[in-house]
């Protein structure tokens, strides 16, 4: 029997909701229903961080807090979570005192969001560098201060250890029950197992799957789409599993960017660098690798790298599973090799051979929290080069002609790029720029392969969190 409610923790107390409009966001719930107006709306699309709240989860038995954008969190994602908002801190939290002391607020509208991001950082009880704090705050925009005092305050607050917290109350909310609220016309479903997911999705193939909602949330808040039937993936146990084996990674489609960070970093430092530049801490705490693939976006950042690494994916429909190369999943703009009722279940990423070299780059107008103009990944392996790009075609795409032409030398390969790709011009970059930087990235990758240090090839080394 499915449970017909969602439960989450507020101020140490469980809250049970039985009547939840599927498309309701956490921000509207807080501001309009609960009249908790400390959490602000600056953009309603996950980009400014003014709506940041802390989300507590039990992971491997431990309580962890992550910052999320309340404006694009749907209520259905919250089951089994703890929600902490700025009102729940007492005003004297080390982060709050430090922000006041360092004159880190001017208009103050961004401040609650910063407080909550920094609250989650503070909970980690780890030392940080300035670059590390910068990176942690990429999802919080401030138009007034210029950030310097905010980062100073953060660094100071981190000197005070966090108060001990009890995970018991939240642990008590974890269960393995499927959730179903509503009726066939309009519902929130949150299956707890892969089998339940397969079953309900097969029954409602036109329902919308929601993983982290970092895309789906915007369909609701910006495109004003009506999505009455939502199936949430974040409680499907098997989809959250990540296995790091000798041959490679096995990643459940529901694994978030954040959860994948360690394994990706171990794969290659450029995978960590790439990950850090996807969205922000908030986006990475919610967004999933599966979602980044399944959405079929031509400017998704993990597919080019995963294609270059030779990743495959597993799809499931009902009780049937199949596996295919990731590069074959993307057919055309907005079209993937996925049947109605079928979903992405796992991603397999082989390890990089010690003799191979791997390079991944993201080019965007702003370094942090921006969408790629061009994203390029280069894998020079014993069995030949594998090169893939995002932002260059209607899908993430392998540069097969370029790969082949490399045997004839650099000039031939550079010329072949124009045969592989005819990129578009848009507000992020012109077609000419895209092609030219794609070529530049190939040159760089080769120079780096041949031994030129990153400090000589990349301008952005200075901003990076030290690996």
């Amino acid at each position, binding site marked *: 029997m499915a449970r017909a409610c969602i439960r989450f923790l507020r101020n140490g107390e469980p809250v049970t909701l039985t009547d939840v409009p599927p498309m309701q966001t956490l921000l509207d719930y807080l501001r309009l229903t609960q009249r908790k107006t*400390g959490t602000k709306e600056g953009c309603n699309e996950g980009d400014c961080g003014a709506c940041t709240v802390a989300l507590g989860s039990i992971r491997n038995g431990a309580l962890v807090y992550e910052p999320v954008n309340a404006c694009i969190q749907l209520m259905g994602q919250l089951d089994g979570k703890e929600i902490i908002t700025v009102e729940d801190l007492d005003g004297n939290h080390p982060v709050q005192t430090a922000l006041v002391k360092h004159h880190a607020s001017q208009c*103050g509208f961004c*401040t609650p969001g910063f407080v909550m991001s920094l609250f989650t950082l503070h909970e980690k009880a780890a030392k940080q560098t300035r670059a590390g704090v910068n*990176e942690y705050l990429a999802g919080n925009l*401030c138009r*007034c201060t210029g950030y310097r005092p905010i980062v100073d305050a953060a660094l100071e607050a981190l000197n005070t250890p966090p108060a001990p917290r009890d995970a018991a109350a939240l642990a008590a909310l974890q269960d393995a029950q499927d959730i179903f609220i509503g009726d066939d016309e309009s519902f929130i479903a949150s299956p707890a197992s892969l089998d339940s997911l397969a079953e309900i999705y097969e029954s409602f193939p036109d329902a919308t799957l929601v993983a982290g909602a970092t895309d789906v949330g915007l369909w609701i808040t910006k495109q004003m789409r009506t999505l009455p039937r939502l199936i949430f993936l974040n409680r499907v146990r098997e989809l959250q599993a990540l296995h790091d084996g000798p041959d490679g990674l096995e990643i459940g489609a529901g694994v978030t960017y954040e959860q994948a960070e360690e394994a990706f970093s171990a794969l290659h430092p450029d995978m960590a660098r790439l990950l850090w530049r996807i969205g922000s801490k908030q986006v990475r705490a919610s967004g999933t690798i599966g979602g980044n693939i399944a959405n079929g976006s031509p400017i998704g950042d993990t597919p080019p790298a995963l294609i270059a690494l030779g990743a495959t994916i597993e799809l499931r429909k009902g009780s049937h599973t199949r596996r295919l190369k990731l590069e074959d999943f993307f057919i055309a703009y907005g079209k993937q090799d996925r049947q109605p009722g079928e979903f992405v279940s796992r991603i397999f990423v082989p390890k990089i051979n010690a003799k191979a070299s791997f390079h991944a780059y993201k080019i965007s*107008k702003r*370094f942090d929290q921006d969408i790629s*103009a061009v994203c390029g990944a280069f894998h020079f392996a014993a069995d030949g080069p594998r090169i893939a790009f995002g932002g260059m075609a209607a899908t993430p795409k392998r540069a097969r002609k370029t790969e082949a032409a490399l045997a004839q030398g650099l000039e031939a390969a550079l010329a072949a790029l124009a045969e592989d790709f005819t990129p578009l011009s848009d507000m992020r970059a012109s077609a000419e*720029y895209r092609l030219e930087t794609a070529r530049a990235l190939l040159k760089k990758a080769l120079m780096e392969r041949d031994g030129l240090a990153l400090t000589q090839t990349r301008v952005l080394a200075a901003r990076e969190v030290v690996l």
Partner: protein
Amino acid sequence: MDATPKPKKFIGAGHSTSHDSAARHVAGSATYIDDIREPEGTVHLAPGYAAKAACGRIAKCDLQAVRNYPGVVTVLTAADIPGVNDCSPGAGDDPVLAQTHITFHGQPIFCVVAETRLAARRAARLAIIEIEAEKPNVTVEDALAANKDVLPSYQFKRGDAAKAIADAPHQITDSFRIGGQEHFYLEGQIALAIPRENGEMLIHSSTQHPSEVQHVVAHMLGVADAAITCECRRMGGGFGGKESQAGQWAALAALATYKTGRAAKLRLDRDDDMIMTGKRHDFRVDWQAGFDASGRIQAVDTQLLSRCGVSADLSQGVNDRTMFHSDNGYFYPELSIFSRRLHTNTVSNTAFRGFGGPQGMVFAERMMEAIAIQTGLDPLDVRKRNYYTKGRDVTPYGQKVVDNILPEITAELERTSDYRKRAKAIKTFNDQSPILKKGIALTPVKFGISFTLASLNQAGALVHVYTDGSVQVNHGGTEMGQGLYTKVAQIVASEFGIPLEDVRITATTTDKVPNTSPTAASAGADLNGMAASRAAITIRDRLGEHAAKLWDVLPKQIRFEEGQVKAARKSMSFAALAKSAQLARIQLSATGFYATPDIHWDRAKAHGSPFFYFAYGAACSQVTIDTLTGEMTVDRVDILHDVGKSLNPAIDLGQIEGGFVQGMGWLTTEELVYDAQGKLRTHAPSTYKIPCASDVPSDFRTKLWKSDGNKSPTIFRSKAVGEPPVMLAISVYCAILRAVGSLNPAKLPPLDAPATPEMILRACRAMES
């Protein structure tokens, strides 16, 4: 709450006290308009526009589906407006709702009024609108071809610039572009109208100009100004975007209240805000200069061609200020500074921190770089050689520069930033580095303080002393994060010699201080601080006289300090004196008024002294660029900025750093992209990129110039600080230009602003050819 009261601290003007709302900012309890608990039955608004077209006649506007959407109460159109359909700051050319034609993409045609904001937003998309679309003029070139302006051209002249340039030993001719900028205040435009009896209304508006909102609403409703009260406790950022352009949203909320009798709230969605409200003006600058081998300018001839959008808005003042600052700190013996205010079918551009000044200054600094490249001199030497000095001290508009400290500021920053040594090291680095190139630049700022529309240089304040010794202060200035309220409270606390916490700051409202000027032109503290000081002094004088009588001493012997009133060996608390004065029937409330003295400006003759004084500063920035991709990072920034005798060093530092970073965004990552149909393609933070934390240089050193105080008699000899720091960021643009220039030292890089990676790469490629 603490049980034991903390000892009171005497933090008057000059001290780094926290922003008055800092504790509430971090607690989430500072109230913005959307946080106010709405009166029961409040309706919510969402404007609607033609999705596809930019300009043309409205052939059809079918709102049936909108009206039928569940939750919709009514739909407002131009026909509902009882008064005048205009929300312009004066010219009468900005309809609240378009009636027969639209002139730009995103122009509101109707406004949905619904029970919830969501219902209003969803319903707004259901309108069927057909426009007989005409081809919009979008670019400077379109407007030049159509020969369309929103306002007449204007010119400063001295001598015969064309001839002097031709006669000079060296000449340069160049043309480049400077982009616009979206304000991206974190709190979007919002207004809440609340009905009162007898047709009166209270408008909560996030505005830098409550008096204008009051006036726009009254004018639109056809009622007296006195029937409307406009209040603003704080804004979540303004930056000029809420100077003239908050009125439309307040007018629509008021119209809904007028029509439904219910309170009404309009909060623009972020995308709508970016599409429907104006931005910093963007320019094409065509210029020529003549100079000698030492880099000294003999004549300048520049044409400042700005895109103003569809209406006048504040374009006169903005473009005038571009002209006023196209000299920055440099003397041009002969000159022609010509400005065109072009009409384009894009949203009307408006005030933005610096108010046109930054664009003029970018031109001046690009010219310095160009001269340096052509003469082979270091650009800093070219700058110094052209600074205003004795005998060469008259600006293009006739004002004599009498307070110049740029030579001193520059010398000190040159030393503390290690400019020469680093410039040399960079040359070595660039010679050895194949892909990455560095650049460094030290640029000055001289910014004129005062509204150039003389009538705006006035302010009023209202101060009440209560019998327990607590004080309320109110003034015409608004708080947008710049710390104005804090500074004014510090000033009042100083005048009374009482602890800052005894001074209560109250929301700016038109029923306390009327007929105010916008909080703009960096003049907020100068004007309102002085007015509040005068109000406080009036009361203090009355109290002093009363104390003198009580103690039988002369009023001038009375001192107000540390919460006490003292004379010789007598003393009593400020509160006791207030109480005693009230019993003696002495008025404990006063208004204060201030009008800036000694400024005059004859616009027809283009001559006068429009500025009370200048604010100065300089910045040295170093960048690294990637010549293969155009990516860029700012390595280090050193700033030395003059705020006179600071009213609050911490707040001033915040203005300087924040302004710098905002200026840096304008000149680097913030790119407004309009397509050929006149649609803004970058109308969300996903596509319009303001700086985030990692864009701030990791090595960022900001210092206040040790000043003996403003030479002009400003409040406590402080200087305005809101806008000038934005222009310190021009050093970043120039440093990028230097880095690109290293590829071919003889050529001026064709680098437009913003210097996005794509722009930088394009400039790099041009250097090779």
